[in-house]
């Protein structure tokens, strides 16, 4: 049942329940997509989205906090850094394996701390008298038992307020245990406006305290890092399979199925591939400045997008052997993709999707739906910034507000020994001519149709209006939205934790996804929503006379 409303009418429907002040703000966060006028020299003429702005109190946002972004998203998927959450118990408990990141220790002897949940479990007396002593003792205990190579400390809300200095504790404990790299994050939940602040805080500390400490060089001619891939549902495993098949060495993944040692040696690559631009672009930029490692944006969600991203890697290296091998791999993978598409596309073609996830998934997953012949008619991010919507060319025009200013911007300089220019400006220009923009990201909006509704930080009320007025065939979001959407007879696909399935990345992942969407959209339960006597008057009459 496609919407009868025009985009503008739909927008007004979304806004009309709000008090004037709230409506004025949301009006700037709900944008009707319009492609830029090429005559305006490529400068943004329309489409400016208010993003990374404060959440309005009392409006049910999908967003989490800085701690969630730092601990849950960026550091959580690493298996051998021992994470201690400094604070009352809830925060540690809530982030205990809930993102369903997977990991695969090489042997039984290799440490895996991911299934644990360590906390200082602060009590009232710690809030009053300070929790540093308790934290130090907790670190003593954790090191005595688990002997980790690295240990990090995550600050929750009260920590900063009561003046506990996790960085001083980290320094002191590192002096006591010189073999253990100990570092802390000031990622209190109230920092910034969303998880995004926590990503930045995590990037900074890993960059200053971890990166460059090691000198592992995995064997291979083409060594790359994959940034912003968190191995939800085994996505990273599928990408590892594809990379290996292509002869590309994955030095480090930030941070799905990763280890501390890989982080320390992530500077030993020629190229950084950025998946989730929002959560990790800081790292990519800082690595380029310090080590001269260039980066470009990739997307391995969708079979076509995966093929395109692999080809970009081949072209970047410009090595025919690699290019041929990548083409051979794509040719080998594609028949199964096409067969799966032939099976599932007919029952999905022409249907619609809406996507409200994270800082990149709302963009990436559009490709998978597109491959099924489904159009994403409305989308938005939970915690992204303007560049994720409109492209990185708007970076210089983003106004830095007080909330963002509170998150440290690290000043980075080229490393005297390790800086090495990988691509000359001339080569960059050549690559650009081939369609490979280094350090570039076009954002979500240029790839969406005109008239699509872009909604930043979608809230509960707006999700309900969308369901009522647009009734898409499927809603891609998270578990918080899942059951309210399904109450209305629309399936919701969890794109944070994948409803315990996956992988969806790469080639095999695409096949899984096609089957999954078909299974959900065409599930038999939706046909039972209305009782027979509700939908058919004749039946109603016959029921009435039975017995």
């Amino acid at each position, binding site marked *: 049942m496609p919407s009868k409303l025009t985009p503008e009418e739909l927008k007004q429907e979304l806004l009309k329940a709000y008090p004037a002040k709230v409506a004025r703000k949301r009006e700037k966060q709900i944008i009707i997509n319009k492609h830029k006028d090429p005559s305006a020299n490529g400068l943004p003429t329309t489409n400016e989205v208010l993003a990374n702005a404060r959440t309005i*109190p*009392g409006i049910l946002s999908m967003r989490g906090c800085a701690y*969630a972004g730092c601990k849950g998203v960026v550091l959580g998927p690493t298996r051998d850094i021992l994470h201690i959450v400094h604070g009352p*118990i809830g925060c540690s408990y809530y982030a205990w394996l809930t993102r369903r990141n997977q990991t695969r220790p090489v042997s039984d002897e290799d440490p*895996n701390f991911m299934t644990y949940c*360590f906390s200082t479990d602060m009590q009232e007396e710690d809030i009053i008298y300070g929790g540093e002593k308790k934290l130090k*003792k907790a670190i003593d205990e954790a090191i005595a038992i688990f002997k980790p190579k690295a240990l990090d400390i995550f600050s929750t809300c009260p920590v900063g*307020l009561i003046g506990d200095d996790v960085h001083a504790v980290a320094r002191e404990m590192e002096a006591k245990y010189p073999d253990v790299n100990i570092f802390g994050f000031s990622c209190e*939940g*109230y920092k910034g406006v969303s998880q995004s602040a926590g990503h930045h805080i995590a990037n900074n500390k890993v960059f200053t305290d971890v990166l460059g400490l090691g000198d592992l060089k995995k064997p291979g001619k083409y060594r790359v890092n994959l940034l912003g891939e968190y191995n939800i549902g085994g996505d990273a495993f599928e990408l590892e399979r594809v990379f290996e098949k292509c002869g590309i060495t994955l030095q480090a993944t930030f941070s799905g199925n990763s280890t501390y040692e890989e982080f320390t040696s992530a500077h030993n690559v020629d190229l950084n591939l950025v998946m989730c631009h929002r959560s990790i672009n800081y790292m990519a930029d800082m690595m380029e400045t310090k080590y001269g490692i260039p980066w470009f944006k990739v997307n391995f969600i969708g079979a076509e997008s995966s093929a395109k991203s692999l080809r970009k890697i081949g072209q970047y290296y410009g090595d025919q052997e690699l290019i041929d091998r990548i083409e051979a791999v794509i040719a080998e993978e594609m028949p199964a993709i096409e067969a799966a598409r032939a099976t599932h596309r007919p029952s999905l073609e022409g249907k619609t999707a809406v996507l409200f996830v994270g800082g990149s998934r709302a963009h990436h997953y559009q490709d998978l739906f597109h491959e099924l012949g489904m159009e994403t008619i409305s989308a938005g991010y939970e915690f992204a910034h303007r560049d994720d919507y409109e492209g990185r060319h708007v970076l210089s025009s983003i106004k830095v507000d007080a909330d963002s200013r509170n998150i440290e911007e690290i000043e980075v300089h080229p490393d005297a020994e390790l800086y090495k220019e990988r691509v000359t400006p001339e080569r960059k220009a050549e690559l650009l001519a081939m369609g490979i923009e280094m350090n570039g990201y076009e954002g979500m909006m240029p790839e969406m149709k005109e008239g699509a509704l872009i909604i930043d930080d979608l809230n509960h009320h707006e999700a309900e209006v969308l369901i009522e007025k647009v009734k898409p065939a499927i809603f891609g979001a998270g578990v918080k939205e899942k059951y309210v959407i399904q109450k209305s007879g629309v399936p919701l696909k969890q794109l944070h934790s994948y409803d315990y399935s996956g992988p969806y990345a790469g080639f095999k992942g695409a096949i899984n996804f096609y089957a999954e969407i078909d299974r959900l959209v065409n599930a038999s339960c939706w046909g039972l929503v209305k009782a027979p006597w509700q939908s058919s008057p004749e039946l109603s009459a016959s029921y009435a006379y039975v017995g």
Partner: protein
Amino acid sequence: MSTKTKLITEPGREVTQDACRVCAPLGACLAFKGVEGAVTLLHGSQGCATYIRRYLISHFREPIDVASSSFTEETAVFGGKANLLAGLDNISRQYTPQLIGVATTCLSETIGDDVAAVLRDRVPADPEEKCKVLNVSTPSYSGSHADGFYRAVRSLVSALTEETSEVFTQRLNVFPGMATPADIRWLKSLFKAWGLEAVVLPDYSDTLDGGLWDTYQRIPSGGTSLAAIRGMGGAECSLEFGHALNPADSAAVWLEECRGVKRLLLGAPVGVAASDLFFHRLQALTGRDFPADLSAERGRLIDAYADGHKYVSGKRAAVYGDADLVATLALFLLEIGVTPVVCAAGGPVSAFREVMKGLVPDFEERGMEVLSDVDFDHIEQATARVGVDFMIGSSKGYKAAKRLGVPLVRVGFPIHDRFGAARQRLMGYDGTQRLFDELVNTLLSHTQEATGLGYSYM
């Protein structure tokens, strides 16, 4: 690695490894879900609301709205008053709720926001606003989710229940504790069948286990009405289920002290003995004969105990989770011939040993270890030390059970890795029957899988 890790053994350690409790604001969010037309606002960082929603939603598989006052760094420095007021006005406008329950978090408690004063002085932006706003103090650094739950229920009663000189016979207040929606539904239909006018608080039997919606419901229908809570002072007595709850957090104690309603405290009716006692109380209140269909249910349960004794009698179990549920399940296990050799309350429950001593005076002679304020590492160590045939508690015990190679019977909160937590029935002969069946089947299945002989005749 998981099998190689040595467990922390020294006493009094500071690091909590795999907690067996959640924080207090979660309990308040659950309690407020059982009030008609209510919305919860957590006063603190939005992460709390998001995490707690996710946790509750994954257990109940139902929509759960929890708003936040969404602190920023500036709010943390200058205080949360402006955000709280804006949040209340926005909720009021969007939901037109009958009640907003404001629960605090460690953030607002640490900076010392005086929520009560803000609410007292509040002038709603909408002069037509009719909703009641109340607050409960639930700092995450104190107690557990169970404490937050009890405190929120008490705050509802103390803020709403009116004074009355009238007492209505056959009117009953019921505080079931953190019961499942299905058990609450069962209680309600039971009281109805017995002709009792019972107010169950909280009642999330519809809001957390409802059907699909024909039309959109901003706040799911169901829940205890505010009018019913206001009238609780006129009840003949309050039935409160629990063994270990702190009287200072008890709604029934408040009603007894401030509204003169007699409090009857008894354990949740799980197991034959506890159900007998419960029905005996109902008989005394109503003066009715014991219904024949209940006698039949009781008979079937005893029959099942007899049929199942070969599988359960003499077995040993570890039971863990919220103190009240642990005590309830320990009594049930003893009744079916299983010794709960580890009884572990995850929350810091003072006098849990004394509570258990009162229930099972010879627990030490029986070899039962009673623990409180412990995490899953403690529970696993204790369990490994004494050896058990199965574990029973929330799904968070899965890792320990797996490592110890024993089956797990999932009861309590949270159950995130199985379906139907909201529909789990434990209470009464019938509920006990289902729990007993599940327990026996779990043991049978474990034996069947372990032998590898392919027997289908157990």
